[in-house]
């Protein structure tokens, strides 16, 4: 039976990586050529970017506001101010009726939608301009703070979650004892522990790391336990007939057999930890990339906000790609990675 499923899975991977069949685009799981796969992956980023560029640079698509360049005689207009089209049209009409100087301006998007070019520029300048606050942090310092928060949160969660998960996956008694309470905690939103974490751990790094741990740990225990439970039992039986005993069965058979899957789980869970970052950093004294984002949005520097958000995405995706490549090196025998 296992050999049959092996054959089926290798067949399936052949189909996915096989040559494209002309005229079969819409067949379920139709194979793609390598070139097409690369092109589609690039388009995955280029299409949203193109849409964003179109909305930003082609005035006919949206541009609901007008950027005032010359206020004329309108007393409450200022240069660089954004007003909606209706208000601007009304003031233009007033100026015509009263024979005062009309205001001038160009079509623009709302302040919360900067153009890709503006975000790109902000991406560059936010690393090169000093912080607005005297005791503020540079963007890279904020990022470094965030990375440390994620790192320690994830390490602490993994130090508890991975061994406990493996134990639950390998031993039914442990699973019965641990999993029900974990299932309960899993549903509690991590931010709900914010004030409690501050009361216990102060206002600096402690509660932030704690939120990440709370957000990650309970899922981690259950996911790692489930993966461990899927260890091929026939390998365990083979090891038994070779004279393997007790703890060695766990350390020499069960864990190695699921190690590539555990590694994949950890990659997914690391992504999970990142999604808790902003909430965690708002707990206590706001810090890290969240401090940068909240400050910049207070000044309405939305290009900087987008640049910081993009930075998180780039860091996350970059880390995952590096870890995926490392996984292929670490587990050359893993068929799912090939």
């Amino acid at each position, binding site marked *: 039976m296992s050999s049959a499923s092996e054959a089926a899975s290798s067949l399936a991977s052949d189909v996915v990586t096989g040559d494209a069949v002309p005229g079969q685009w819409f067949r379920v799981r139709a194979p793609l050529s390598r070139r097409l796969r690369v092109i589609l992956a690039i388009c995955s980023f280029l299409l949203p970017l193109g849409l964003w560029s179109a909305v930003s640079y082609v005035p006919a698509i949206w541009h609901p506001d007008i950027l005032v360049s010359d206020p004329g005689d309108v007393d409450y207009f200022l240069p660089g101010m954004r007003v909606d089209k209706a208000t601007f049209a009304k003031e233009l009409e007033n100026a015509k009726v009263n024979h005062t100087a009309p205001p001038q301006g160009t079509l623009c998007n709302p302040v919360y939608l900067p153009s890709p070019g503006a975000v790109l520029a902000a991406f560059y300048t936010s690393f090169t301009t000093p912080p607005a606050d005297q005791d503020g942090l540079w963007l890279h310092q904020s990022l470094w703070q965030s990375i440390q928060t994620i790192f320690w949160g994830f390490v602490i969660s993994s130090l508890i979650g991975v061994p406990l998960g493996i134990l639950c996956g390998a031993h039914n008694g442990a699973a019965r004892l641990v999993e029900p309470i974990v299932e309960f905690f899993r549903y509690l939103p991590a931010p709900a522990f914010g004030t409690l974490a501050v009361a216990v751990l102060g206002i600096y790094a402690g509660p932030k790391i704690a939120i990440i741990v709370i957000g990650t740990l309970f899922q981690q225990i259950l996911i790692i336990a489930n993966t461990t439970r899927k260890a091929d039992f026939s390998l365990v*039986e083979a090891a038994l007939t070779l004279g393997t005993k007790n703890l060695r069965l766990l350390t020499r058979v069960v864990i190695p057999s699921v190690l590539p899957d555990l590694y994949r789980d950890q990659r997914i869970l690391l992504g999970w930890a990142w999604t808790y970052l902003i909430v965690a950093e708002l707990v206590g004294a706001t810090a890290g990339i969240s401090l940068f984002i909240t400050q910049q949005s207070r000044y309405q520097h939305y290009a900087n906000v987008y640049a910081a958000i993009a930075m998180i995405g780039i860091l996350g995706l970059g880390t995952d790609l590096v870890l995926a490549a490392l996984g292929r090196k670490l587990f050359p025998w893993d068929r799912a990675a090939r």
Partner: protein
Amino acid sequence: MFDTISYLDQSQAVKDRLDRMKAREVILEVAGLTKKFRTGKSDVTALDDISFKTHRREFLCIVGPSGCGKSTLVRILAGLEQASGGQVLLDGHPVKGPGRERGMVFQGYTLFPWLTVRGNVMFGLLMNNVARAEAKKQADEWLGLIGLEKFADAYPHQLSGGMKQRVAIIRALVNRPRILLMDEPFSALDAQTRARMQSYLLEIWKKVDITVVFITHDLDEAVFLADRILVLSAHPGRLQELIEVPIVRPRKAEHFSAAEFAATKARLEALIHPPSQHGDDEEAYPSVPLLTDVRDEVE
């Protein structure tokens, strides 16, 4: 037990060989083995009062219809399942749980995918606290014996099915077990590879002091390999007959067309697929209506 033994016509050479075999010490003794499974309220008897002995260097095959519990039987012998009653004695000592003195080869190859071929062969030795250098030396010797020394550093997924099963066999043998249990080891292989593996297994068995208990549903395979064939009946699994295979050794491909081969197989067929009992637990296959205009000599 003795009234279930069937002696097909034996040549003097076969009889002498079997006599010599039966004079050797008993390696494995199964006495009154019973296995019941709980399904809801009622018990289902999978194995009922199975008793037999295997002698040193014997090649014993166990055959039976599907559902006769032959896999359950060999798993109990391996210690992977508990019997509900009766005893399994290895060298006179009752078997409790799995152990290295009973090696096993499974239908799925069950090689450890994260270990190289050498690592797989070394595994049992390391688990029994043989020093790493010594384990490596022995593993390489055994790999040389089956001609796979070139693949020592390859991973199992890089091997063909036949090679994997060869590695699985020596992985069990390197541990120096008293008995080798094989649960339909070649059924996942294609017909050609299977035939070669059968000859190769006999080749290994000839050179190594090992007693084999071999489960199969392939009657040709059983006749070709076995000294004696244990036939089980289904629902519940009972010992039906113990057949002494009247074919001389060494076995060769031409034995497949020998008269003794046909006689043994006919006896097995009669036991496993008795003509009267059709329709009992086998579903009836309806006749197919005529759906073609082109009628040729096929009818």
